[in-house]
């Protein structure tokens, strides 16, 4: 008995739904195994990752708080990924957005202006776009790999942030901690309820999801971008310049990440510190893929990824496991999802019975 792999005549619609579910289930199995191997009860893992965050209002608030930047950034990145533009430096763009927004929040001459928050929003977005414009320019004009440039710039942004909070922007009244002064009240997003941390910046994410959906599914430009990704030669023949896809793809990701950084500084953090992001920029890449680069999927994937972050924090506190566990789960989830996607386009058939 032999098995062979063959291409399906049509991509399987059933598998399109089954694949992510199977990937999540397999990730859970591996996760439970990992827990058992580390000498913990696998049920405790399920509880920490999937029950505890969901059975309290605070848990739901934290879920939204973390899902919001992930979904926002993933929406921006997906625009690029669809056109085969590989911005993997959203983390750096997020940091630059947070820096610019905090700069405006701290140094704007009138801290009691209602314009403060909108200005910070614009500053964060502009900074994220500016940081993404560097790889866009280099790729479009100089043919330089945007993968490497976006990533290198992430290291540079991290160092720049570190310099700012250790040096010129350090809070003089902050007991030498590497962090800036707290932002004034008008520079902060108001929480929905003072008891919980989730704030009005989730509306920005909601708008971004709709904009992304319209752009990718309902606009001609979005369609052209998708063609540029799937068939570059056809796109060129149709008169759509590759450089346009590069610029749009990178700037969309940069803008989203910059705004996400602004919302972190003006939201749960209220200031700038070296750890402005727990890796949202990288996790958002996974969210974009798990969400299949479309708006609805990204929302679900973002919520799932947020659960992983929360679960990671929980086991860190309650079981003393390293927070890196979250990254392991993220990687495993993406591995399984990519493998499961195979079955959308291919199937395994038994051939011959005799040999």
């Amino acid at each position: 008995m032999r098995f062979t792999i063959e291409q399906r005549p049509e991509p399987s619609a059933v598998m399109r739904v089954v694949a992510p579910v199977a990937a999540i289930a397999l990730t859970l199995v591996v996760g439970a195994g990992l827990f058992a191997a580390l000498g913990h009860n696998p049920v405790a893992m399920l509880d920490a990752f999937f029950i505890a965050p969901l059975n309290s209002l605070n848990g739901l608030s934290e879920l939204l708080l973390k899902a919001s930047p992930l979904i926002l950034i993933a929406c921006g990145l997906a625009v690029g990924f669809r056109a085969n533009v590989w911005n993997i430096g959203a983390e750096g763009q997020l940091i630059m957005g947070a820096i610019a927004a905090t700069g405006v929040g701290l140094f704007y001459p009138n801290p009691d202006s209602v314009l403060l928050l909108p200005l910070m929003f614009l500053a964060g977005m502009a900074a994220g776009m500016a940081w993404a414009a560097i790889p866009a320019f280099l790729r479009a004009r100089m043919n330089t790999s945007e993968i490497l440039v976006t990533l290198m710039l992430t290291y540079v942004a991290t160092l720049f942030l570190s310099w700012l909070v250790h040096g010129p922007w350090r809070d003089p009244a902050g007991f030498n901690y590497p962090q800036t002064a707290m932002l004034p009240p008008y520079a902060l997003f108001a929480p929905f309820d003072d008891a919980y941390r989730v704030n009005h910046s989730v509306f920005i994410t909601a708008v971004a999801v709709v904009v992304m959906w319209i752009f990718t599914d309902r606009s001609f430009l979005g369609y052209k971008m998708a063609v540029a990704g799937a068939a570059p030669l056809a796109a060129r023949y149709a008169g759509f310049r590759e450089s346009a896809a590069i610029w749009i793809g990178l700037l969309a990701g940069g803008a989203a990440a910059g705004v996400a950084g602004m919302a972190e500084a003006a939201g749960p953090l209220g200031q700038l510190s070296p750890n402005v992001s727990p890796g949202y920029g990288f996790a958002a890449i996974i969210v974009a893929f798990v969400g299949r680069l479309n708006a609805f999927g990204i929302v679900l994937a973002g919520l799932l990824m947020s659960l992983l972050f929360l679960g990671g924090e929980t086991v860190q506190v309650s079981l003393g496991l390293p927070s890196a566990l979250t990254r392991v789960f993220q990687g495993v989830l993406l591995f399984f999802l990519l493998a499961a996607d195979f079955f959308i386009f291919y199937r395994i058939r038994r051939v011959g019975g005799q040999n």
Partner: protein
Amino acid sequence: MDLFIAIFTGTIVAATPLVLAALGELVVEKSGVLNLGIEGMMLTGAALAFGVALAGLPLPLAIVAGVAGGAASSMLFGVLALTFLTNQYAAGLALAIFGSGLSAMIGNGFGNTPIAALGTLHIPVLSDIPLVGPLIFRFDILVYFSLFMVVFIGWFLYRTKAGLVLRTIGESPQSAHAIGYPVVRIRYLAVLFGGAMAGLAGAYLSVVYTPLWVENMTAGRGWIALALVVFSTWRPYRVLLGAWLFGGMTILQLQGQVLGIALPSELLSALPYLATIVVLVIISRNRQMLALNFPASLAKPFRPAG
């Protein structure tokens, strides 16, 4: 003079992990596969090697563990990219993230304990020659191994039949398949080799270079190695050149911080990353030079028909 010797030898040593990882990736890319997960494989290798050394086992064993760890983790990518025909960019990224998480898990209990690093060689007579001795004959054995590998890979790729087959597969897997070469199996071997070299590079960092475990201690070297392959335009000897350039950058930056140059240390630390970008731009502008050695089927999934 002592400063010169320190900078020269420091450069060579700092370049060694880059040489190893980049050479491995060069072979992978020459077979038409793009593995972005070097950083993850290096970290896995670094953590395993350090763990073995910390447990008191001999250092050669630790290095073997690093190699094995890198090779094993490369297979996660290999199965996805070669059997499941996944988008290679996404699979490589997944490996990079997974490896950073896994290594941090492994290294969780290591604490801040340093280990006794692999020592430098002392070759009778040669190591004692003034100037030449310290400059050339007093490195650890892996430095010499990395240099040997540069020559070996150059010879293998361009002077052997197996190397020719590998390059053919990178150019046109369809043709190689039609002639009867097992494309997928050879690509698996290439990916495995790349993983082993990345694991060795990671082990070099944690048991020779640092020798201390720090989470994410590769600090982007896996990505710089990736950039070096582009910089080298897929020629092994130019990998060495590029790695020395970056090694020199690292050492100058460290020396600069020691000498108290009136620049923020963060700016100096950013130099290797900025230099990577500058060098990439210079090379990438020359499309002809890139096209000359670029494996035409890079990152394109291949499935044998039938």
